[in-house]
């Protein structure tokens, strides 16, 4: 038996349960504004994890996650307002529609790699933005869709928080299982060396497409959750600035750690709200922080913490044995 107390202390499952328990207590401890802030962090964390499946595990730099996020948000919004669909169907249809659009977009994008892949995803996201922006009859154009009819149960911030938490927790758990599966391992080998992976008879493009579709699916859920949370949708959800928000969330937390985007999302939203409260020039300070991260903390907060933690763990084990 090599599993001792310290190992168990650092095991991922324990931490996940602890974090989940802490998150469940949040509405009893904090005020409504803090709860809604944490709600926003949860949704961003899901979007970040979905993007990171491509970014950190597949090595595919996408500039267009916001496009699929917006597809999810608009699917729910349009199903609810225009077709009066039952609430749960409207929410559950969003990831399916996002995955379908993701399949079409991904089919084109995975044909190219590196900078061309990034530009293709950007172009598709901009097309989605244009369609949303211009198609007044269907999406209400740049006015967005407001006062979306959500069930009365979700009018209270506490209920909507638990609703989001349940979805985000399940989705992040599923994503965690995916990156730990043989599929996830193959994806990482494609990131490390696509050519060698191809040599061992792995259909690289098909795997990349699968990663794209899974990522789109979860981005769709994140978009749908945000639509329910905010009660309105706007074309800006698809804008590339939103995509870069998501990229920054992943990088801030660390793209080579599963928990990276979750930490990144918390810190990013906290920073942007705190700085925005004190100055109108929050983008300036955010930019400075990003520059600092890129130059000095390239593995993000999670990478930095993991390094410190493993050193600490080694020291503990050293004294024990």
């Amino acid at each position, binding site marked *: 038996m090599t599993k001792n107390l310290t190992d168990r202390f650092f095991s991922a499952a324990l931490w996940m349960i602890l974090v989940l328990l802490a998150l469940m207590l949040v509405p009893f401890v904090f005020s409504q504004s803090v709860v809604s802030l944490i709600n926003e962090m949860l949704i961003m964390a899901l979007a970040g994890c979905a993007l990171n499946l491509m970014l950190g595990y597949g090595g595919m730099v996408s500039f267009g996650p916001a496009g699929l996020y917006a597809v999810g948000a608009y699917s729910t919004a349009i199903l609810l307002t225009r077709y009066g669909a039952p609430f749960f169907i409207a929410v559950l249809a969003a990831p399916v529609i996002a995955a379908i659009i993701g399949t079409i977009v991904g089919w084109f994008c995975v044909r190219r790699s590196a900078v061309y892949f990034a530009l293709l995803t950007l172009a598709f996201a901009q097309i989605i933005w244009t369609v949303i922006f211009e198609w007044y009859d269907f999406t209400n154009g740049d006015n967005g869709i407001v006062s979306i009819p959500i069930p009365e149960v979700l009018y209270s911030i506490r209920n909507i928080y638990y609703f989001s938490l349940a979805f985000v927790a399940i989705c992040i758990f599923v994503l965690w299982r995916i990156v730990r599966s043989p599929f996830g391992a193959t994806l990482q080998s494609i990131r490390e060396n696509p050519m060698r992976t191809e040599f061992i008879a792995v259909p690289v493009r098909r795997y990349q497409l699968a990663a794209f579709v899974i990522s789109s699916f979860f981005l769709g859920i994140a978009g749908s959750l945000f639509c329910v949370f905010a009660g309105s949708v706007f074309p800006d959800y698809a804008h590339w600035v939103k995509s870069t928000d998501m990229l920054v969330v992943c990088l801030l937390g660390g793209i080579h750690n599963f928990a990276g985007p979750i930490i990144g999302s918390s810190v990013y939203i906290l920073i942007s709200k705190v700085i925005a409260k004190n100055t109108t020039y929050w983008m*300036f300070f955010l930019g400075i922080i990003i520059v600092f991260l*890129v130059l000095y903390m390239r593995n993000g907060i999670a990478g930095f913490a993991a390094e410190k933690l493993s050193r600490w763990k080694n020291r503990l084990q050293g004294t024990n044995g």
Partner: protein
Amino acid sequence: MTLEAFTGQALSGISVGMVLFLVAAGLSIIFGTLKVLNLAHGTIYMVGGFLCYLLTSKLVQIPGAFWWTLFIAPVAVAAIGGVIEVLLLRRIYAQEMLYQYILTFALILIIGDACKFFFGVSYKTVAVPWPVNGNVSLWGLSFPLYNLFLIGCGIFVFLALSALIRYTSLGRIVRAVTHNREMASALGINVPRVYTGVFMLGSYLAGLAGTLMPPMSVVALGSDMAVIIECFIIVVIGGLGSLPGAFLGAIILGLLNAFGIYIIPKLALAFPFMLMIVILIIRPWGLLGKPE
């Protein structure tokens, strides 16, 4: 559509295209040599626009204020570019592409907010300078002279840059570094200095475009985002790293923007992206680029 409206539309499309060509040429040269896709390139262009507004309003007593500005502002922008390259970009050439994106994205935020701090959020306008104000009539049709001036500038810069890269020893050094960095370094070329120089040249071109644009349009925060996206489209159509490609791409995009609205108005905004996707799929190295 009448002939006059048609040619007028084409002319204004091409003249905007020429300004975009200057920005895209800078982006393309930087990518070709440094292998960095500078997302902040549009922001550097915007700085040129704000400097144009600042200098023309400060120098208003001096005759020919705009022409002095046209001389000073791009040089100042090039200097800013040099500082960015030496202080920041130089540290991340060896890193993954992702870090370059994020770093240059951070520059968009920093420089954008700095512009907001110094110039405020209102639109800034610059008068069309003498002697290129007014209209000129060609073949019985009347055109704004400034548009023709911009087209002239675009063609001049294109020819001058091509000559610079093709025929001068400086151009040979840049081509050598672009082709093989290690080999050039082994032959005694100071590669980091070439990188700084190329980045400054690219920034100069963005600054030049930024200075030329305000008399025809306005200077506004957020114009950087619109311009960088159009530059991506141009360099993808023409081929990343190809100067003639950027020129051709800029003309195509200019015409597409001018006439797209007459074909399917609702999809006019999406046309350039559709073209970009088609090119990336069937000819990813662009119309005039070289396959890798």
